């Protein structure tokens, strides 16, 4: 037997992968897909959460505009009655 004979046998070391590997890859991919957002997730959490967020936004906007309106009304009243004027006091 010569070293060259062993070298020539290198291609014989080629092996086939065991069949069970594909099954475990397949299972792992399916498991990961399930873990990533299942449809129930959207029904259970995402939709109610978005609805609550929209509602909160609406309330904030409404509060803001109402307060803006109140401030405008206040200044309009102040201007209309002109409380700073002293004329009224002397007239009395």
């Amino acid at each position, binding site marked *: *037997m010569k070293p060259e004979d*062993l070298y020539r046998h*290198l291609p014989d070391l080629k092996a*086939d*992968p065991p069949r069970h590997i*594909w099954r475990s*890859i*397949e299972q792992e991919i399916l498991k990961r897909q399930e873990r990533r957002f299942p449809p129930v997730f959207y029904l259970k959490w995402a939709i109610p959460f978005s609805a609550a967020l929209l509602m909160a936004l609406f309330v904030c906007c409404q509060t803001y505009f109402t307060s803006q309106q109140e401030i405008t009304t206040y200044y309009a009243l102040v201007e209309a009655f002109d409380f700073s004027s002293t004329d009224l006091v002397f007239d009395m």
Partner: protein
Amino acid sequence: MERELIDQIRGGNFQAFEKLYHLYAGFVYNVALGILRNAEDSEEVVQEVFLILYRKINSFLRKSSLRTFIYRIAVNQAINLYRKRSHRTNCSSVSLTSQHKEADSEYSEYKELTEAVLNQLPVEHRLILTLREIEGLSYEDISKILKIPIGTVKSRLKRARESFMLKARELLEQEGLL
């Protein structure tokens, strides 16, 4: 065909991915085996490579061929695992042949001895011999996978061959077969 396969996988066709697995699993397994010399670890590498591939197939830009892309992931994964487990080096490095023993005893003896020689080589030499002599890749393919010039591939292969011959001679002398 490669382009079609990628498009099918991107479109969510799982059978196309299975087809891709059967096309390249052999190569990935043999490269891992060449580097790690351990069947269990090599199976782990095959699994990891195809999971990475499934995740990254959408970001594959087709700059290189899919084959080179897969080969490169395989080599990187196997080397990473080899580094992680370097303390275990030759432990279960095994006679892989003994797991699938052939009926022909002379053939089997050759195979076992060849494996024993390969186990004694540094990982760099094992890798290049696996790519060239076991998988039969061209110098150009090896150069792309290892990202080294073709000249370096040739010189590394020459050194690996010399190292193999030296170890083979030592082993045959030890066994009294020379």
